[in-house]
C-alpha cells in the first residue's frame, strides 16, 4: 500500500459514482439513522451541554492564541517525565522521524491505534516501503487497511464496507481460517479479528497512537477509544510513539475534561467513550508493565499557516465527526468521494488548506449551506462560513467554471439589494417547496442541472429563512 492517492480534483465524478452505488447508499442510510438520533439524545440528557460547547470553544480559542507558549510548556513537562518530543514541519519529516525510531528499536512490525494524522501523512505506506510492517488495530482501520483504502469517516473508517465484504477480506488474508467456519455475522467477524490482532499486539516492537489531547500542564497525551486497541498498542510494545498535530494542545486536565464532555456525545452519542487514557512518559521505576520509551512527534503540516487567517477557527476541530454525520451531502455521497482522508464539512474546509486549493478546491462547493454542521459542531466552528471563504478565494483565482461565476454574480446582485432578494427568494421557495414536498429532496431541478447532477437539492420548507426568522422573532 502506498500513501493515499488524492482524487479530490475529480470530486464531481467521485460524487456521481457514489450516488449510483446501492451498497454505499445503504451504508450512508445507517449513518443518518444512527448518529443523528444518538447525538440528539445525549445532548438532551445533559442540561449543561450548550454551556460546555461554549466553554470548549473558548478553551481552544484561548489556547490557539497562546499556542507557542503552551507548546513550550508541554514540551518541558514531557521531557521532565522522561519522554522525547520531536518536531516535524511536514509529513515527510514526521514519517522519517517515526521510521528512525522504529529502526533504532529494531522494529519489524508496529501496531497502530487509530490516528487521522497517520492517515494524513501516509505513514503506513512510508513504513512499508522501508521494510517496517504497520498493523492497524482499530477494527474499522484494520478492515480498510486490508482493503487498501482510505477511511471514509473520521471515527467510523469502514462505515462504507458491508459485512460480506469484511468476511471476504478476512478469508483472503487470514489464510489459516477453516473454510467451514461461519463468518456471516458481525459477532463472528469481531471474534476473528480479536484473535488475529491479539497475536499482533503481543508481537509488536513499537506501538503508534494518535492523541485527542496533549496536556500542557502535565505533558500527558490522551487517547479516546471504545475498543481498547489503542491501549494495547501503547502498553505492550517496548516503545510508544504518539503522533499529533500542534493544535491538540490543551492547557490543563480540567480543560481536557470540559472538551471530553462534548466529544463522545457529539461523536457517537455516548456520554463517555469506553477508554479515555492519559499517558505521561515511559514506565516508571518499579512499574511491572508499560513502554520503556515514550516519544511524541509534534506535527505542523500546515497548522501554523492557518493561525491568524480566517481558517484559524478550524484548528479547534476535535475530529468528532458530527459535522459529517449531519451533512446531507455526506449522506448522499459518502466519504471517499471527497478524495482524500478528511471528508464531510470539516474535510471540505481542511483539505484545501492541507493539499492546496488546486487539488482540493472543489470540496468547499460540496455544501447546501443548510448550516446543520455548524449547529452540531461541539467546537462551534463556523463551517459554512469557512467553506464560503474558500469559494470566494477560488472565485478570485478564477478557478470556478464560467457558469458558476455567472450565478454567483446573479446572487450577489440580488443579495446586495435586500428587497429584491426577499421577493425573488419568496417566489422561488414557494414554487420549489410545492414541487419537492413529497420526498423533501430534488434529484433534479430544471435550469439547475449543474447543481442537481451531483447533489440532491433539499426541498425548501415552503418559506424563506428570512420569513421564518421574522416569524420566530415575532413569537419570542
Amino acid at each position, binding site marked *: 500500500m502506498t500513501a493515499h492517492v488524492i482524487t479530490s480534483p475529480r470530486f464531481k465524478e467521485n460524487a456521481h459514482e457514489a450516488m449510483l452505488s446501492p451498497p454505499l447508499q445503504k451504508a450512508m442510510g445507517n449513518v443518518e439513522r444512527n448518529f443523528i438520533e444518538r447525538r440528539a439524545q445525549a445532548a438532551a440528557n445533559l442540561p449543561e451541554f450548550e454551556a460546555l460547547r461554549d466553554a470548549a470553544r473558548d478553551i481552544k480559542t484561548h489556547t490557539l492564541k*497562546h499556542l507557542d*507558549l503552551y507548546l513550550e510548556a508541554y514540551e518541558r513537562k514531557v521531557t521532565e517525565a522522561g519522554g522525547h518530543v520531536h518536531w516535524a514541519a511536514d509529513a515527510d519529516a514526521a514519517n522519517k522521524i517515526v521510521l528512525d525510531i522504529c529502526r533504532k528499536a529494531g522494529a519489524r512490525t508496529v501496531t497502530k491505534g487509530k490516528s487521522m494524522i497517520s492517515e494524513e501523512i501516509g505513514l503506513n505506506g512510508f513504513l512499508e516501503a522501508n521494510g517496517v510492517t504497520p498493523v492497524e488495530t482499530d477494527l*474499522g482501520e484494520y478492515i480498510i487497511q486490508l482493503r487498501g483504502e482510505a477511511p471514509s469517516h473520521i471515527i467510523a473508517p469502514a462505515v462504507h464496507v458491508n459485512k460480506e465484504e469484511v468476511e471476504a477480506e478476512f478469508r483472503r488474508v487470514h489464510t489459516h481460517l477453516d473454510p467451514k467456519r461461519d463468518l456471516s455475522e458481525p459477532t463472528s467477524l469481531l471474534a476473528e479479528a*480479536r484473535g488475529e490482532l491479539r497475536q499482533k499486539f503481543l508481537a509488536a516492537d513499537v506501538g503508534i497512537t494518535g492523541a485527542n489531547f496533549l496536556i500542557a500542564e502535565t505533558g500527558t497525551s490522551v487517547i479516546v477509544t471504545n475498543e481498547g486497541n489503542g*491501549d*494495547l498498542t501503547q*502498553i505492550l510494545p517496548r516503545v510508544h510513539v504518539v503522533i499529533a498535530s500542534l493544535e491538540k494542545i490543551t492547557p490543563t486536565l480540567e480543560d481536557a475534561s470540559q472538551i471530553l464532555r462534548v466529544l463522545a456525545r457529539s461523536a457517537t452519542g455516548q456520554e463517555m467513550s469506553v477508554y479515555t*487514557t*492519559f499517558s505521561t512518559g515511559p514506565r516508571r521505576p*518499579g512499574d511491572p508493565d508499560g513502554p520503556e520509551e515514550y516519544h511524541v512527534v509534534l506535527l505542523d503540516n500546515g497548522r501554523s499557516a492557518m493561525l491568524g487567517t480566517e481558517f484559524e477557527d478550524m484548528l479547534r476541530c476535535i475530529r468528532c465527526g458530527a459535522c459529517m454525520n449531519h451533512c446531507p451531502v455526506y449522506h448522499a455521497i459518502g466519504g471517499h468521494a471527497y478524495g482524500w482522508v478528511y471528508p464531510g464539512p470539516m474535510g471540505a474546509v481542511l483539505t484545501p488548506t492541507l493539499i492546496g486549493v488546486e487539488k482540493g478546491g472543489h470540496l468547499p462547493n460540496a455544501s447546501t449551506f443548510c448550516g446543520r454542521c455548524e449547529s452540531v459542531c461541539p467546537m462551534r466552528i463556523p463551517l459554512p462560513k469557512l467553506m464560503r471563504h474558500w469559494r470566494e478565494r477560488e472565485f478570485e483565482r478564477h478557478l470556478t467554471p464560467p457558469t458558476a461565476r455567472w450565478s454567483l454574480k446573479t446572487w450577489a446582485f440580488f443579495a446586495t439589494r435586500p428587497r429584491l432578494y426577499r421577493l425573488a427568494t419568496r417566489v422561488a421557495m414557494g414554487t420549489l417547496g410545492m414541487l419537492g414536498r413529497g420526498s423533501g429532496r430534488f434529484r433534479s431541478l430544471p435550469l439547475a442541472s449543474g447543481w442537481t447532477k451531483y447533489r440532491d437539492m433539499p426541498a425548501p420548507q415552503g418559506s424563506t429563512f428570512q420569513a421564518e426568522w421574522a416569524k420566530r422573532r415575532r413569537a419570542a
Partner: protein
Amino acid sequence: MTATRDAILNRVRRNLGVSGTDVTRRAAVADRITRAPAGVVPARGQLDPADRVALFVAKAEGVQATTERVASAADVPAAVADFLRRHNLPQRVRIGADPRLAGLDWAVGAGVEVLSGPSDGSDLVCVSHAAAGVAETGTLVLTSGPDNPTTLNFLPDVHVVVVDAGTIGGDYETVWRDLRARLGKGVMPRTVNFVTGPSRSADIEQTLLLGAHGPRSLHVIVTG
C-alpha cells in the same frame, strides 16, 4: 531538531502577530496552568455520598457493566468466587501487588487461586482496584504504578474492578483534585485509565458489539 522546533514556534508567533516574551501572554498561560479553572461542571454528580454511589451504579450499568455492593473489602474474595461460579469461570484470577487486594484472604471458602503480576494475555479474569469512581458517567479511574499493572485492565476476557464507595466522586474534576493532592501539581502516574463499560465496537455495519480488543465484560464491586 531545534532548528525545526524554532522555525515552527517562530511561524506560530509570526502568524499570530505575537511575541514569545510578551509578559501579559506569559502570565495568562502561567495563570491558567496554575489555577486550572474547572469550567462547567454538570449538576448531575453534585449529590450526597449515598446518591452519588447510586448514580455511579446506574450509569455503569447503563453502559453494560455489571455491579454489586459488598459491606467491606473483606467480602471481596467471596464475591469474586461467587461471580466466577455464576459465570462458569475457573476459580482463578490475576491481581497486582496492590495491598488492598493482595492483603485480602483469598483462601476463604473453597478458595480462589490468585496469580500476581502483569498479564501476558492468557488470563481469563483479572481483578484490579480502582483509585476512584466518577458518578456522572459511571466511570472507573485506574492508575498505574508498581502495584497496579495496566495490562490487567485490557488483556483479560473478564475484568473485575473493586472500588471503595468513599472514593466515588461526582465529576472528573474531583479526580484531578485528588491526584494533585496525592502526587503534587503537574505530576501524573504513567497511566491513568478512565474506563466506562466493557470494550465495544460498532465498526461492522454499525452493529454495536461488546468485547472488541479489551475485556468482553466488566464487573464492578463497590465496597463500603
